[in-house]
């Protein structure tokens, strides 16, 4: 008797490899599933809980006071189905982006200078404290008087509110960096500029990730408040109109759009920046 042999040894090896890979996947599937559940489960549960509470409040107080999540979703879709909705969202996003870029340049630049120059830091410290203590509403009123209800007034307000935060964050990042690494580089003959570029800046940027996140969230809040007060086109102005018309659905839709805009920017800009600049900190933690 002769045992039946596969006609081609190559095919037999390939099928063995495929079955081994399949077995590997079967073994790994429960582990991957539990990891996915652990990663996405708790946030989904939190979101579901929030929506359930919202729905319960809607049932308790009625649609005139608090529309249901579904009604709000429909209002969001309605707002985005016309160009004006996109324009309002785009205007707010553009103002926040422009103002944050400005405050990063000015606040971050001055923060770098102050971090390295003790006298400059001591001189500017009271100014930073005063600016940090100024309420955002006060700036909205002042800029309305100075510039009138304009695009520039809103950008200025966001920049002046977030600038001191970026300044303080940058100063702190400069002061708390590990200077011993720069000493190491100096021992190999690295110039001051090279040490700054290759070592100090790397640590400073890593510390600035959370500060950018906070500034972004604050920038959005200030933008909407300023738009609401100045009635310049944007999500804030749409909210002002919704309030005037007592359109609670549209008011909540604008809130949802603002939150969505914030989340989108955070995930498209801030998070990638954080993981690029400070990913190594998570490894060392």
């Amino acid at each position: 008797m002769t045992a039946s042999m596969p006609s081609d040894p190559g095919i037999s090896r390939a099928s063995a490899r495929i079955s081994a890979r399949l077995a590997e996947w079967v073994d790994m599937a429960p582990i991957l599933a539990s990891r996915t559940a652990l990663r996405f489960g708790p946030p989904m549960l939190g979101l579901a809980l929030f929506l359930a509470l919202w729905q319960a409040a809607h049932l308790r107080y009625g649609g005139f006071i608090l529309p249901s999540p579904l009604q709000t979703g429909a209002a969001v879709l309605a707002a985005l189905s016309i160009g004006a909705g996109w324009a309002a969202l785009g205007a707010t996003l553009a103002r926040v982006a422009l103002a944050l870029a400005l405050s990063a340049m000015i606040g971050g630049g001055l923060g770098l200078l102050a971090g390295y120059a003790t006298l400059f830091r001591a001189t500017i410290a009271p100014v930073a404290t005063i600016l940090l203590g100024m309420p955002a509403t006060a700036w909205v009123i002042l800029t309305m008087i100075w510039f009138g209800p304009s695009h520039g007034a809103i950008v200025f307000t966001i920049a002046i509110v977030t600038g001191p935060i970026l300044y303080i964050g940058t100063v702190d990042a400069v002061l708390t960096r590990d200077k011993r690494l720069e000493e190491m580089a100096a021992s190999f003959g690295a110039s001051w500029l090279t040490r700054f570029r290759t070592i100090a800046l790397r640590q400073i940027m890593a510390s600035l990730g959370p500060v950018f996140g906070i500034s972004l969230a604050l920038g959005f809040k200030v933008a909407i408040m300023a738009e609401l007060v100045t009635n310049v086109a944007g999500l804030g102005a749409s909210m002002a109109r919704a309030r005037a018309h007592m359109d609670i659905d549209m008011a909540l839709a604008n809130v949802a759009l603002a939150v969505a805009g914030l989340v989108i920017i955070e995930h498209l800009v801030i998070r990638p920046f954080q993981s690029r600049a400070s990913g190594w900190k998570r490894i060392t933690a």
Partner: protein
Amino acid sequence: MSGLTLATISHGFGGRAILDTVSLVIRPGELVALVGPSGCGKSTLAAIAGGILKPDQGRILRHYKRHGMVFQQSRLLPWATARDNIAYPLTLGGMTGTQVIARTEAAAQAVALLSEDLMKMPEQLSGGMRARVAIARALAVEPDFLIFDEPFAALDPALRRRMQDLVLSLAEARGFGGMFITHDLHEAARLSHRIAVMDRQGKGILGSLTPPDTPGHRSEAQIFEFVEAARQDPLLSDLIHVDERAMSVHCACDTLGFRRCC
């Protein structure tokens, strides 16, 4: 051949004198251990020798082309792999990518680092491996003089001994001179041609002790006997008996008068 002369070096921080006219000559090819109690200014002297600090007074004469430096706690860049850490000083000198790779590989090989270790981040390496990476980084620049600033102080005794063996074999193979800062007399006796003893208040080098034979060729018995004898030497009484908490702070300025500054 490589040597170093530190002539009448004085240095202070914020009006507080750390080093006061310290002079030390390291002859070509000589590995000198610098010992002294904590806080006597050994690391400040190493930083001055390594070009990190400029002394307030004094001269430094370097009779070598390049030096490498190995620090306490390794000082590896936490965002870079072991390979990139070793290559870091090479990237400062405008070398081509091929040269950097070749030198990095050679330095890693010299300290017995495996290629899989080179892909790891510093936090993924053990204390001994981090020390190896730090030594490889110093070797990558092909130095003819090496400065060690208590590089193995944080390692356990067995690992410290392995690292000492590594330094001994590298010194013998490459013939570099150097300065080895330590407060461990046994380590100093094992590694160096000569042990220079620093004053506890940084007021110069008190004197030198020379262990028998040459580093790497001393037996354990010779080292033990030398250390036991040295412990009785008045030169080392501060190193062995001083309590740094009981040390008076020497200040360069008037601490009581109108212009007090410390």
